[in-house]
């Protein structure tokens, strides 16, 4: 057990030590994909400085109200507000010229209707003065009006192709979401599980940004065909992003 609340365990020490080592060898939490420099933001957003573009994936707005309407489970109706507040923090910090929401921005196609007026105004405020692209996802492909911005299935940006669901055999430079990757590190009876970016230098799969979006372990077979030669997971820590090799990652 340690100070600061979280139980101290030697594996957390080890993770921190590992992180420090990586920090020395790799000063910026970024990588290169199809010749484009990517910065992996601690918030789970992707910052393309050369294009002044911020990419966020799988916002799943109105997931709470979707549960209430479909199954009568009353999860706290603050997920949209929370997700937008996080997004606001990144936007205020980076001041992007363009924001790309990489699909599944709403949990279902009726999501925009159920949005509270305050949250709707928040979206409008975020969109003001910048280009805003909603990429279609599997949850929200039917959403194509009423929440500002423009709509697209894919978006090409320099050498990158931005789409919601990764496509097997895609050309180099694919940036996708959809899978909600999470990485788990387990040592000596303790486990840390965090959202993460996954990349093999050929494609990048982004973490889900939404407050209620769950996660799929990167050791799940769903990732195998996308990364046949292995990958590095970039886990979102409390203070920064940690690059962890596949061998260090545990299954659920």
């Amino acid at each position, binding site marked *: *057990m*340690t*100070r*600061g*609340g*979280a*139980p*101290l*365990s030697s594996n957390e020490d080890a993770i921190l030590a590992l992180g420090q080592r990586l920090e020395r060898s790799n000063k910026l939490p970024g990588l290169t994909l199809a010749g484009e420099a990517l910065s992996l933001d601690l918030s789970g957003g992707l910052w393309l400085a050369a294009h002044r573009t911020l990419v966020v994936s799988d916002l799943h707005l109105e997931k*709470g*109200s979707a549960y*209430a*309407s479909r199954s*009568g*489970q*009353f*999860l*706290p*109706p*603050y*997920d949209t*507000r*929370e997700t937008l507040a996080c997004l606001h923090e990144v936007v205020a910090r980076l001041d992007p010229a363009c924001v790309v929401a990489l699909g599944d921005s709403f949990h279902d196609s009726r999501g925009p209707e159920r949005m*509270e007026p305050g949250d709707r105004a928040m979206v409008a405020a975020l969109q003001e003065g910048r280009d805003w692209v909603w990429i279609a996802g599997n949850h929200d492909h039917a959403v194509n009006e009423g929440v500002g911005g423009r709509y697209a299935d894919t978006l090409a940006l320099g050498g990158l192709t931005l789409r919601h669901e990764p496509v097997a055999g895609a050309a180099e430079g694919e940036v996708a979401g959809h899978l909600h990757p999470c990485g788990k590190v*387990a040592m*000596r*009876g*303790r*486990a840390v*599980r965090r959202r993460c970016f996954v990349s093999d230098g050929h494609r990048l799969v982004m973490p889900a940004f939404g*407050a*209620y979006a*769950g*996660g799929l372990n990167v050791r799940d077979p769903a990732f195998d065909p996308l990364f046949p030669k292995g990958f590095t997971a970039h886990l979102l820590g409390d203070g920064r992003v940690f690059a962890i090799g596949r061998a260090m990652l*545990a*299954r*659920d």
Partner: protein
Amino acid sequence: MPEAALPERFAAWFASRGWSPRQHQLDLVTIAGAGRSALLVAPTGAGKTLAGFLPSLIALAGPRRTKGLHTLYVSPLKALAVDIARNLEAPIAEMDLGIRVETRTGDTPSHKRSRQVERPPDILLTTPEQLALLIAHREAAELFSGLSCVVLDELHALVTSKRGDLLSLGLARLHRLSPGLTAIGLSATVREPDDLRRYLVPQNHRRTGASPPPCGEELEMGVVPPGSGQGHPATPTPDPSPQGGGEVFMADLVVVHGGAAPDLRMLETGRALPLAGHTAGQAMPAIYELIGRHRTVLVFVNTRLQAEYTFQELWRLNEDALPIALHHGSLDASQRRRVEAAMAAGQLRAIVCTATLDLGIDWGDVDLVINIGAPKGASRIMQRIGRANHRMDEPSKAYLVPANRFEMLECRAALDAVEEAAQDTPDARLGAPDVLAQHVLGMACADAFDPNAFYEEITSAAPYATLSWEAFEAVVDYVATGGYALRAYERFAKILRGPDGLWRVRDARTAQQYRMNVGTIIEATKVKVRLARQMRAKPGTIMPRGGRVLGEIEEDFAETLTPGDTFLFAGEVLRFEGLSEDEALATRAGPGTDPAIPSYAGAKFPLSTFLAARVRALIADPFEWDRLPRQVTEYLLQQRRRSVLPGAADLLVETFPRGGRYYLTAFPFEGRLAHQTLGMLLTRRMERARLRPLGFAANDYGIAIWMARDPRERIAEEPGFLEALFAEDMLGDDLEAWLDESSIMKRTFRQCAVIAGLIERRYPGQKKTGRQVTISTDLVYDVLRKHQPDHLLLRAARQDAATGLVDVGRLGMMLRRIQGRIIHKALDRVSPLSVSVMLEIGRERVYGEGADEILAEAEAQLLEEALA
């Protein structure tokens, strides 16, 4: 009170068996015959169950009343209900009473359940969860309208948990559906019988309009032992409550004292005990020998890990191949049933068991109870002792087996407590809001409710007697739409208030959801352990199907296993082969394999406040030491020489350097949970004081914190530094800040969320994995805490944390106690007392049989240092 005479048929039956009715049995007949409720407190073997049913049997044997359910019996264990049904058969058949008795548990087939509602038996035996389902039934009002008597068995065990809250609300509904209902509580000896007497009867008779028996009487049987606190004369009630104001409503009290004093001792093996560790490996030969000399022995341990270890060790010694079995909560249910059946049939010589056998069926032939490890509580140990010899006039025989030197102190304290018949059962509970939320939805499923009448009914239940109208409204609002300040879910409301002012459930689907989620027991997510087969043709290849299921392990534990790891389970050393869907596959490890003992927690009880105070008193008073084993006395003498022994109310704090770090140890003796919380809070404060704390370890007796800076300088330079560090105000902001981000709080919140119906309960075979649920509740917790920190479920989780895993209540008591009583000793090396808690460091997971040797080695090194 006029003496009751048994009807002739009953008197003849007693005579035919060579029995005469006991006084308390007759008293219950009199009290219940007068339409009054009663609490029967009696030791095991006093014929408690028969006493509870006698009034109903007599009434049912009389002139035939209208058909329908007459008596409802509720037990915490379904096995107990089934067993009681069997025991009732004999008198009913032999007296030819023509009474129909049935059980209703989770195992009862649905056609039988429907039939039980259409054509109810005379006596129905069930569990608190099934009662909740029954009163939520559309036909509940009719089913219970003629109910005369409700019997609550093992009441002392039920009232200490949320199950007790749920049962109290069910009982309140029964009192309302059948005014004048007699409630009979059966209980082991408890510290405050008045708490249970209140639990049985409505706390606001006048308002509910039920016919109140305006007074409760006490009947004392046997001899009142001095100092037991139960010898006060009959309390005429109603009397002014201590809080001033209202009246006190209590059931009558019938106490059966005495029985023969138990023959209880500490097992002396003559060997030196380690300073830490809980396996009691050194005592195994002596325990085996005791088993050989007795008919049937129950060997109680405190955790499943200890159960596995003990079972393994006994079989290692078992040259005579005595039938020794294992029983704990992780084993497959059918396996547990087989063990119970073999025990009942007298085929076993010993069962190694955990708290799973604390309650339950009368074994009959048990002639010795052995309790390994610290007793943790005086009442608990008396319950366990009572499992031996169910005849109250013969002494129960039992041994306490300490596993380390501290436990010797604890065993001594427990022996003293048993001698004085002192009790340390917990205080009465404040009803949990999450349980109330579940009940409110259930009652809306039964029928439309009027909020005013319903509020009166709920506050008639003792745990909810102080519930305010506003708090009640908040719960109703939560059930209807989630209780959120942002009114987002109005149009999806689960219960709706009609123009007539009554609340009704929205639809059949909501009612179905309620039925699927009823109950307050939230099991840790578990995975099955299945024995896999090696493929003959290809050694090393595992066939995933076909093997037997051995039981279940916590998912958290399974996740820490990697293929090839070995662990003790179900009495065998298994090799983990991998996870397949929701099952852990394992093969039998080769002979002589050292297992990595599972770290699954099982039931772990914190040391009771009462025993802790006695242990402190023992240490503080050298005149008491001659009653302790010599190795303990010597150890205490060493401590006095090297450092100091604290007084009974003092807190000893020691500081010393070791291996490049600085240590601070403290000995509050308040139990592991309270110490863990203390450690969390102290390290926060030490961080602010720039002492750079690095970690801490805690056990039942004390904590050790290690840090990068030397605290001795600060303590010497700054007067009052330690006092400020241990000041009570740590329970303010520091506690709040820590709780908010602690994983304990998230787990507690998840349980409240499931009970209150926010998150659906999972059932085996459902596709969704527990991991997903855990994650979503963590996400929900974070979002809710940020946006509505005063939400009902967060308040419920905090209320739980205060008494449960965080034990803030006890920590607060300790901090008040030690004000101005901190004794600081700056040492240049570790003291004997500190060694005991230092040995907890790094004990998260213990490996194999080598573990104790390694610990002993570490201990020897530390000791050498201390005594050099």
